[in-house]
């Protein structure tokens, strides 16, 4: 049994992406040397949306990359799980660029930790800035987001789902409370 509560609907989601895009451009004084990299899988869709918004605001299409962090995950090394490993695709040099790293949900921080290690192997960016749609707390590492769509206080038994049109048919944020039967 589980109970789903819709926290953000489709228009709200679009406004959130707009705000994040504006914040990124404002903080970086424009778009020069900005590149955007999405974390597989959902971060990639979010990254595309933010990129489209920035193109609409500034008329500039940022270089877009895809990062798969499986090979850098600590839980894979510890034999806790073996997820499918897929290719990263960063068709540009990230050295001396400002990397906008995008993921859907920030939780323990372990995925972002892996992503930082992975990115450093691709080059030496001037900065790495983290964008997440939801920060749900419960960090296990000293990591924070630079741009946050929504901060949601959750319990560990709850799950936050960022819905995306490309995979789920609609946009939004749901809070799912898992109940013991």
């Amino acid at each position: 049994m589980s109970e789903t509560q819709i926290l953000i609907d489709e228009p709200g989601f679009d406004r959130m992406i707009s705000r994040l895009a504006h914040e990124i451009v404002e903080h970086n004084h424009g778009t020069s040397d900005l590149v955007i990299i999405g974390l597989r899988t959902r971060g990639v869709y979010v990254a595309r949306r933010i990129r489209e918004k920035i193109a609409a605001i500034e008329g500039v299409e940022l270089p877009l990359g895809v990062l798969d962090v499986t090979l850098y995950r600590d839980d894979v090394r510890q034999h806790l799980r073996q997820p499918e490993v897929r290719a990263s695709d960063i068709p540009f040099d990230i050295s001396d660029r400002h990397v906008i790293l995008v993921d859907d949900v920030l939780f323990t921080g372990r995925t972002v930790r892996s992503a930082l290690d992975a990115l450093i192997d691709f080059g030496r960016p001037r900065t790495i800035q983290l964008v997440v749609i939801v920060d749900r707390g419960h960090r296990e590492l000293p990591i924070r987001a630079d741009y946050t769509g929504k901060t949601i206080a959750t319990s560990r038994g709850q799950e936050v789902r960022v819905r995306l049109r490309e995979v789920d048919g609609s946009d939004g944020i749901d809070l799912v409370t898992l109940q013991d039967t």
Partner: protein
Amino acid sequence: MASLTIDHLIGLDGVPREDIALILDTTDTFLEVLDRPVKKVPTLQGKTVVNLFFENSTRTRISFELAERRLSADVVNFSVGTSSVSKGESLLDTARNIEAMKVDMVVMRHSAAGACEFLRRRCTSRFINAGDGAHEHPTQALLDMFTLRREFGTLEGINVCIVGDILHSRVARSNMFGLVTMGANVAVCGPPTLLPRHVDRLGVRVFTDIDEALAWCDAVNVLRIQLERRAGGYFPTLREYHDVYGVTAERLDRLSRRIAILHPGPINRGVEIDSDVADGPQSVILRQVTHGVAVRMAVLYLLGTKTE
């Protein structure tokens, strides 16, 4: 969640299609890693891999070692001259020593068929066969298949002909098993003395005329002719072998289409293949070498991180 069903890679005989597909898909990822400025990922940090080579090998050992180091594994090389090993007892001794050293994975080459399986049964480590006698050489076949898949987009339905000394070739055997499993049409071609009897039972076609074979296939995998086979009486002279079975530019020019040329190396130029073919535009031989590292990384990753 994708995991291999196999726990060791001894051969491709009996390995299910899903496993081979997973290895080839994972290889795509590692090929991308090899293009990065830092060609190394931390995935096998803290794991120890022993390269146990009882038979001389340069390229396979280097390829495995690079793959292991690029996954951040600790690597120990253990080369034993064939002469110092009397099979059976000393192999078992070696097995016990490996066990005592607490290694995680063993990559093994031996001149005796079945040697890898023999040790695997007596050890707790994960084993990868890097060639055992005339039995199997699975990672070579996987890199050949990966190269073919990149060349043609699929293995299903493509015509692949293996030419040369099929009788003594572990590369041929592994390729036949793997390719047939993946739905390719496979043929072998060579002097009748170098074709195993009943090879057609493996589901492959048999050609003894190289021109017919080349006309049939989309890709040809040319095997090295070991010079000492002539002394064994399998064919009269190297020159005659070249005349009758050599893959030459002249033969390729007579075909109505371009076929891909593979060779597991090292090449005997002017024997089984001409220089202008080996270095020509249809050759994917050096790509095979690059793919070899990526395939071995994929196998090491999938076996080395497999959950218990």
